């Protein structure tokens, strides 16, 4: 098992390097000159010598591969560099990432509870009201884009009903931090949760149905084991293994999905930072945030592999 984990970990290194290479050179190909974003056009022409010095100081005259090496070296040593507005990117990430993790974390927990719960009940009460409603909502939840759900949420609960704020994470006039957090997180968390619940609900229902139709469940019933025990001890536990894998795979999707949701709700997380950086051509920030999202996906993928290997020895033996 240790060999399997080490092998997977080592494989991540070249993958991260390839991703960083693609991210770096891909953004360089856009032809955006960072100096244009840092200095107004009038100043560009009036201070040509100083601008050349600045270009030299920033290393923009070096060959691209040298710039890439310097950037990658910085990342590896924990120096994420500076955004075009002069802010250390590490500080930006340190400020914004907790907001995104908070949003994604609550969504993950809520969607797991709701999605798995409804999925299991749907399977136990197959073709019942909850099953029908759950299936309809699952299809809707997957079919309707998250940004649309977000906009509808704002329209209904913020603009029309006035129950929740439409933007930001903290109210400048808040007196109770807990209430303020609840009010600001409710709509974005609900939006992210709806999409996630739909997936988990369908998956949990189908897996549970498969398990409930298996021979060992019939055997358990024939032994006279109480029905609740059959569901929980024999059915639920076995059905959850593949669902946990799916849940793990949804973590990067949650963080990636928050790019859109954070923009819709002006939520100050990593997603909004990335969107604003794209708008203002702040490509150092775009590079680092893209790399973080890619790295998260790789780490989650690694954890899924490990989890799979733990649950099913055939996986690691096959490797």
């Amino acid at each position, binding site marked *: 098992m240790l060999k399997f984990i080490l092998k997977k970990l080592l494989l991540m290194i070249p993958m991260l390097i390839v991703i960083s290479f693609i991210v770096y050179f891909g953004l360089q190909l*856009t*032809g*955006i*000159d960072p100096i*244009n974003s*840092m*200095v*107004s*056009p*009038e*100043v*560009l*022409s*009036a*201070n040509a010598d*100083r601008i050349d010095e600045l270009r030299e100081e920033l290393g923009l005259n070096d060959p691209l591969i040298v710039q890439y090496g310097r950037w990658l070296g910085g990342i590896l040593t924990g120096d994420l560099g500076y955004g075009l*507005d*002069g*802010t250390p990117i590490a500080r*930006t990430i340190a*400020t*914004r990432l907790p*907001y995104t993790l908070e949003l994604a974390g609550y969504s993950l927990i809520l969607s797991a509870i709701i999605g798995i719960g409804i999925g299991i009940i749907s399977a136990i009460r197959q073709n019942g*009201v909850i099953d*029908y*409603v759950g299936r309809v909502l699952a299809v809707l939840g997957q079919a309707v884009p998250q940004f649309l759900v977000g906009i509808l949420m*704002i*329209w*209904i*609960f*913020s*603009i*029309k*009903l*006035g129950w929740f*704020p*439409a*933007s*930001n*994470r*903290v*109210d*400048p*006039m*808040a*007196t*109770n931090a807990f*209430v*303020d957090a609840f*009010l600001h997180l409710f709509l974005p968390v609900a939006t992210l949760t709806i999409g996630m619940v739909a997936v988990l609900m369908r998956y949990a229902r189908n897996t549970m149905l498969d398990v409930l139709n298996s021979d060992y469940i019939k055997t358990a019933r024939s032994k006279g084991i109480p029905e609740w025990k059959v569901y929980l001890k024999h059915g639920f536990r076995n059905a959850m293994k593949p669902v946990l894998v799916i849940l793990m795979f949804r973590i990067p999707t949650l963080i990636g999905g928050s790019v859109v949701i954070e*923009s*819709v709700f*002006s939520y*100050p*997380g990593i997603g*909004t930072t990335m969107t*604003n950086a794209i*708008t*203002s*051509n702040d490509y150092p920030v775009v590079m680092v945030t893209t790399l973080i999202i890619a790295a998260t996906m790789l780490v989650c993928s690694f954890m899924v592999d490990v989890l799979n290997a733990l649950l099913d020895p055939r996986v690691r033996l096959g490797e």
Partner: protein
Amino acid sequence: MKKLIALALALAMVFTLAACTNPDSGDSQNPNPSGSTPGGTSDTLRLALSTNDGSTTDDKVPTPWYNRNMATNLMFRSLFIADSSLSSVSPDLAESYTISDDGLTYTITLKDGLKWSDGEALTVDDVIWSIETAQATAMINAIYTSAFAKIDTISAEGNVITMTLTEPYSAMLDVLGQFAILPKHCLEGVDPLNLDTNEFWQNPVTNGYFAMGELNVGNYFTLVVNPNYEGTAPKIQKVTVSFVNDFLTAAQSSSVDYLYGNATDLVEGMESLTNYTSYEVEVLFYKYFIFNMAGTDGKTNEAMQNVEVRKALIEAIDRATLATLYPSATVLNSGVPNEHEAYNGFEYTFDAEKAKADIQASGYDMSRTLRICYYNNDQTSVDLINTIVYYLQQAGLTVEATLSNDGTTDLFTTREYDIGFKGKSSFSIDEWYTEYASDDALFQMIFNGDTDFDPLLAELSSATDTASRNAALEKLQALEQEKVYKVPLFTVGNYVFMSNNVKLPAGTEFCNPLYNCDVDFANWELA
């Protein structure tokens, strides 16, 4: 099945309730008229800054040299303060001033006892340092660099600043009326090119009504009354400034008291909110075409060299119809508005058939693709460009429109286009014409550094009376209509929207919201 129907009905009721709920009048007034979210108070003026155009970031206070708005206007003062026309000023930090008869020497006396919000004295050193530093700062409004480039010497004795110019500059006082004085003692060691990114902007020392309260990165900053403000203290004691993506949503959810804009969706959306009052503001927000001719780097666009081609292209476009896409647009024929006394009466006419014939007669290669470049990605701009493409296709042209992600680079450096579509919120008519200057950093790259406008621009900037100013403007109009390097479509009016929570003193007049003027803020009250 009955349960299913009951559930469906319940859901339908929730949605209906949401769509119809209005605790007050049943119209589209927001259900949260007090604007206070839980825990909020009504003694606070709520402002918002939009971060969706990339010019404002949500991790610091915007720099007033580049980004004037209500928040920075409340924090930073200038030597003078303008009225709503922006072309008439009265002393603010200055006690008095005189200008020599030849318009070359300005003597400005600073008020006594001025202080920064941190208690340090505000002196003539701050003024001189600010003016000198501004000329080397990375991000700054062009009106300052244009004006300060005319300064020959600047010195001070006691509280008196003496400034001599290399040539008269009629708008100097107006520009000084916008120019915020910054604290030398906080910023003098900072490289001017990095000044706008300095940490100072996370907790700036101010000289206006308000001092910095708290910055919550990504969410808001607050302002508290500046204890060292030397004038009449404002009745409003606290201001919050939230960073938002969308002004309209902020207004619809009643989380902002003051906002502005001219986008069609914003204006139409605000019209439906009865808890806001709108104030139309006349501003010189030009929407215009530029032709990519040739740059001082030698790169020439042969297809646009013939002035007859350029004239025929404009003739093919119905600018009056395009203007209807905006809530308050006025068609223009030069940089001078049609109602201005200096307008020379020339009109670009729309005649599709004649345009078609003229383009063919001009020798333009009809088989080539005419390239349009634009950078505004709002829906109205996209609709406008699509309509322009349609008009030009009706004239028999093959047209390709490209939305640029980096307008400055694409319009003035890459230059892979024939017609560019631009917007410019102009401080004055003069600013429109300074784009023709042969040494203009950007436009020399598409107008080939043409020097024909230079003497007329010098005549305009040194004009000290209305007659000579109008004469210079008439000559400039004639030349721009002859050269057809750029063609104005229309100016777009702006709107200020004020929540009914705010009681304005009688006679309050708003100016271009991207600049500063006297709105008698000290007497604003909250209902």
